[in-house]
Structures are given as structure tokens and as C-alpha cells.
């Protein structure tokens, strides 16, 4: 069976990471930024699974690690949304530029 080479998968995950990074740095909407963070996390998941499969097929650590990351991402999304809701209640906006009180 001719398998897909590892480099292809890594290119995909790198592309996903930078797309997420771009979204995180340029979007003004906090929900969108949260979604971008999910993209970054998923690109890492892909890396873990791919390396596990290609380098150490007899082991399962990479798979389990990505399971953990999914769980943590879920928890993090819950916390982040709670923060966003509270911010919205205070400043009536989900624009990240509007929340600029915390500075010198």
C-alpha cells in the first residue's frame, strides 16, 4: 500500500497552525479568536497522531496525548466562553479592541 508520506501531513498541520495563528492575530471578534485557537490545537493533534503512526506504530502515547488535548481544549473553550460572556455583560461588545482597560 502506497501510503501518504509524513511530510504531506506535516505540511497540512503547519498550514493549519499558521491559519490559526493568523486568525488569532487579526480577528477582532473574540469568538473567532477562540475558534482560531482551536485550529492551532488541532494542528498539534495532527502532529502527535502522525508522528505516532509513522515513527512508533507499536506505541499509543501520541494518540492518548491528542485525546488529552481534546479534553483540555473543551475545558478551555468553556472557560474562555465564560470570560467572553462576562466581558460582553460589562462592555456590551465582543470586540477585543474594546477591552483595553488593562494597561499602564
Amino acid at each position: 500500500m502506497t501510503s501518504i508520506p509524513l511530510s504531506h501531513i506535516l505540511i497540512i498541520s503547519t498550514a493549519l497552525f499558521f491559519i490559526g495563528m493568523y486568525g488569532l492575530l487579526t480577528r477582532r471578534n473574540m469568538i473567532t479568536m477562540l475558534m482560531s485557537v482551536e485550529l492551532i490545537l488541532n494542528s498539534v493533534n495532527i502532529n502527535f497522531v502522525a508522528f505516532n503512526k509513522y515513527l512508533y506504530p507499536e506505541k499509543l502515547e501520541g494518540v492518548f496525548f491528542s485525546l488529552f488535548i481534546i479534553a483540555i481544549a473543551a475545558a478551555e473553550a468553556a472557560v474562555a466562553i465564560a470570560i467572553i460572556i462576562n466581558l460582553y455583560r460589562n462592555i456590551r461588545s465582543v470586540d477585543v479592541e474594546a477591552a483595553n482597560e488593562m494597561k499602564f
Partner: protein
Amino acid sequence: MPTTAYILLVLLLPLTGFVLLGLFGKRYLRRLSGVIATTLLLGSTLLALGIAYNYFFGPDYKSPAGGRLIETVFKTTWLAFGPHLSIDTGIFIDPISMMMIVVVTFISFMVHLFSLGYMKGEDRFSTYYAFLGLFTFSMLGLVLSSNIFGIYVFWELVGCSSFLLIGFYFDRPTAVAAAKKAFIVTRFADLGFLIGILILSSRAHTLDVNQLIETLTSDSLNNFAKSPAFLGFPLISWGLTLVFIGGAGKSALFPLHIWLPDAMEGPTPVSALIHAATMVVAGVYLVARLHLLYALTYDVLQIILYVGAISAFLAAIIACTQTDIKRVLAYSTMSQIGYMMFALGTFRLPPPEPVFNPSLGLTASMFHLFTHAFFKALLFLCAGVIIHLVHSNELKDMGGLRKRIPLAHICFLIACLAISGIPPFSGFFSKEEILTAAWRADKFIYAIGLFTSGLTAYYMFRLYFAVFWNKPASGHPHKQPLVESIPLAILALGAAFAGFIPFSRLFTSADLPFKSEGIGTNAIPPVLIAFTGIGIAAWLYLRQSSRPQKAATALRSLYTFAYHKFYVDEIYLFVTKKIIFNWIGRPAAWIDRNIVDGIMNGLAATTARISATIKGTQSGRVQDYAWFFFIGIAGLAVLFIYIVT
């Protein structure tokens, strides 16, 4: 041993009074404070009398040589710095400390009793009694401490409580200035004391007074030869001189006496307690306690001899010209302390001559301390009565008071006779012994002492005639409260008869057998000169006349010189204001303001400037922070992948 417990009780009863009145006096015990403090002191006095009687006359403390045992009855480690260095506290009993606790508690009790009437209606009545308790406690601690560092601690406590008492009327600027002056001058001297302690204990490797004396005397020749010299003077001599300077400050001896006359700003009973009977003899006590060490050093003894004699003489001359009754008494105190000090200085003759009777000077000094406490406290308490009657300290406002306060008149007369050394009053015996000791040691000092004793008689009777005679007696007897009369009467008895106590048999140095110096023809010159002094005083002041004025004019330059106290105060002011302030104070202030503060301010200013520059990076925008984070991680990645490996 029960004695230890009793001695501790003597020490702690006044402290209890201080704590009780200090905490609750103002609010709850206002009325009772005087009675409480006086009762506590009565207990303390009775115990002290019992202990001293047991010590001097009981069988328990007889030493094999026939004298009295010297021992440390209570000892406990207080501050342990290491296995070989610790500061202990302990109670030390020897004839000196036993006599001192009697004097301190007795005089303090008299003053407590007298103050019940004298200070009545005073705003800070309970505070006054609290301070008196603190003072009595610290003085007792000072005389009972077995450790020289303990003595130093109580020494400072005495200074502190005298500061509080002198400045008792803190709404008067003069009282505040006097308190500050007393504190600073004695502190300055205490610096000498502290350095002296450090030098002595570094040579002896102990802080315990007894061990200190033992170590330094046992191989004294060795020790002195080995002791490194500083400016051509052995180190131990330096230490002893510095300790003496500390004592001279507290005892108001010549160059450091300036605080004593000003200290008369305190309430009069306080002057009786502190500046006559107890605190000022602390220096004498200290030198007496260490007299075996001083006996080793002829040079230091000479210093003591001359400082004492000069103080006695100068103070007597100044006392002749002062017009404030309390100031005259203050200078007479200084003069009498000078007597005690130079008596200690006669402890040993110059080395080649045989040692005659080493303990005579010590015995004489302690004897004079004892009798002086009675008549000087009596004089001050009488002065208190007089001042209350005429509401003035100035002699010109007094005169002819003999009918109005008959009791004070009699008491004052007894005290004057005692201080002038007229037999058979107490001062005669003690002064006689001092002069005998001086005669044996140094004829020049004897001459000064003799002349001073004439001056003493003159200025005391000048005071007496100016207050009680001078003007025609008038008025009816002034009603005096009983609490004021009783102490006067008791002290008058003491001043009259304390001389008959066989002091010299009870009181010798280091258990030496005492050879009695009978009073014979050697008593004639002092008594004659004293009568001459009294005669001159009577001629000048018995009746109101222009004679004092004429005498002052005849001796104008000397009179002005003495009236201004030999300008010692002015010299001090010149040294402090012109020299120390300008040449030390100002540069130090400049360094403090510009260099020390400058470094601190510079540090703060630099920090502020840096933070102002970089604070723009904290923009408050989350995405900027994400950028920094990303760049940082990318930088680290580049660093670890391409540069470090």
C-alpha cells in the same frame, strides 16, 4: 536562702508600683496612687533595713577575718551569646551594696512621704509616683547588680528616669531644656563607661564584677606589663579612666557638672531624691565598687584625686555667689560629691611609700555618702517647704521666715551644721575621716579640702541667715501637713546622729582589718575654719545691711567670674554651637542630604525613567501580547535549533 527572696522583693516592690501606676494610675487609681506607692516603698525600706541589719550585725555573714562576707547570692544567665560569652544577672552583696540599698530605699521612702503633701493636687500625680518607682527600682538594680553590664543597663535606666523626672513639668521650656541637657551630658559620659567596660572585659574575659576584679588583680603585674599601651598608657588604665569618666558624668564632677544645677527644674522632692542622695552618688558607688582595680593604677587614682578636689573647690566657690536656693544646694551637692571622689582617690599612696591604711579613704568616702544622703535630702525638702511658702526660688524674696516655719527652720539649721562639719552632727565625723585620708595621701589636696570645708560652712550659713534671719521675723506659724513634717523630723534625726554609727568597723575594703583613726587634734583645723565660715556668713547676712554688696564689689572680678559659674556653660555652648555645629554638623548634614539621599533619589529616578520609557509595550490589547508571545517562542525556537546546538 530566704535572704535572696527578700532582696528580690526589695528590688521588685518599687517596680510593681511603677507598673501598677503606669498602667492604671491615670484612670483607676488616681486618688490612691500616692498611698499605694508609699506603702510599697515602706515595705521595701523595712525589708532593706532588716536585711542590712542582718548582714552587718547578724551571725550569718561573718567572714573568717572578722569582716563581712562578699558574695553573689543569686545568679542566672540572661543573654547567652555563646558557650563562653554571656551576660548574666545576679545579686551581689557586700558592705557597699547593703549600705546603698538602705540609703536608696530610706531616702526614697522619705521623698514619697513628703510628696504626698507637696505634690497634692498636681495634674500628673500618679505619673509622678510611677516615675519615682521606676527611679527607685533602677537605682536599687544598679547597686545590687553582680554583672558590670547589668550595672550599665540600670545605669541607663537611672538616666532615663531622671530625664523623665527633671522634665516633669514639660510645659516649661526651661524644664525641657534642663532634662535634655542632663540626658545628653550623662549620655556623653556613658559612652566612656561603655568603652571602659568593653576594654576591661576584653582583658579579663568576663563581665562579672567579682571575677573581673579577681582576674585583673591576681596577676596584675603580669597583666599590666602585657597589656598593650595606647598613647603611652596601659590599656587597663585607659579602661579604668573611661569608666571613671562615666562615673564623673553621673556624679556631676568638674568638666561634666553642667547638667546638675539646671536639673533643679524638676519638682523639689525629686531634687532631694535624685540630685542629692542617690543618682549623683552612682559614680562614687561605681568607683568604690571597682576600687581594688583603681588601687592598681596610681595614675588613674591621681586623676580621681584631682578631679574630685577641683570639683569640690570650684563648686563651693560658685555656691557662694548663687542667689537661687536650689542652685546653691545643687552646687553644694557637687562639692560634697567631689569630697567623696577625692577620698576614693586616696586609696593608695605612691608606690615607693608604704601603704598606710588603704581602706581609710574608701571608708571615709562611703561614710560621707551615707551621712550626706541624710542632710542633703533634708536640705532639699526644707527648701521645698520654703519655696512653697514664698513661691519663689530667689533668696531676695525670703528672709525672716524663722517664725513662720519653725520646724523647717530647726531642720535646716541641723542640716547646715551637719554639712559644715560641726561636732557632734553627722557630717563632722565623715568629713573628718576624709580630711585625715587626704592628709595622709597628699598635703595639697588636704589644703584644698580644708579651705573648701570653710567655704561650705560659709555658703550654707549664708543661705540659712538669708532665708531665716536677715529681715525681722513676722507672721504666725504656717500650717504644715503631717506627711511633710514627719520626713523632715526623721531626716533631721538622721542628720544629727548618723555620725555615731561605727561605720569604720563595719566597712573595710576586701576584708582588711581596720585600724581606727581616732578623732583627736586633727579635728581642730576643720572645725575652726568651719566656725570662721559661719562667722563671716553671720556678719554679712544676719541683719540686712549693705555689707554683702560691698564685699561683692571689693572682689568684683572674682565674684562675676564665679557668679557666671566660671563660664563653663559658655565654653560648652561655644564648642557645640560654633565648632561642632559648623565643622562637624554641617558637613555631616551636607553628606547626608547630597550623597546618602542623592544615591537613593538617583536610584528611584532612574527606575522611574526606565519604566516611563517602556510602559508603552503594555498596551492593554490582547493581540499585541499574542504577538509578543509568538515572536518570543519563534525566537526561542530559532535559538535552540540553529544557534545553541
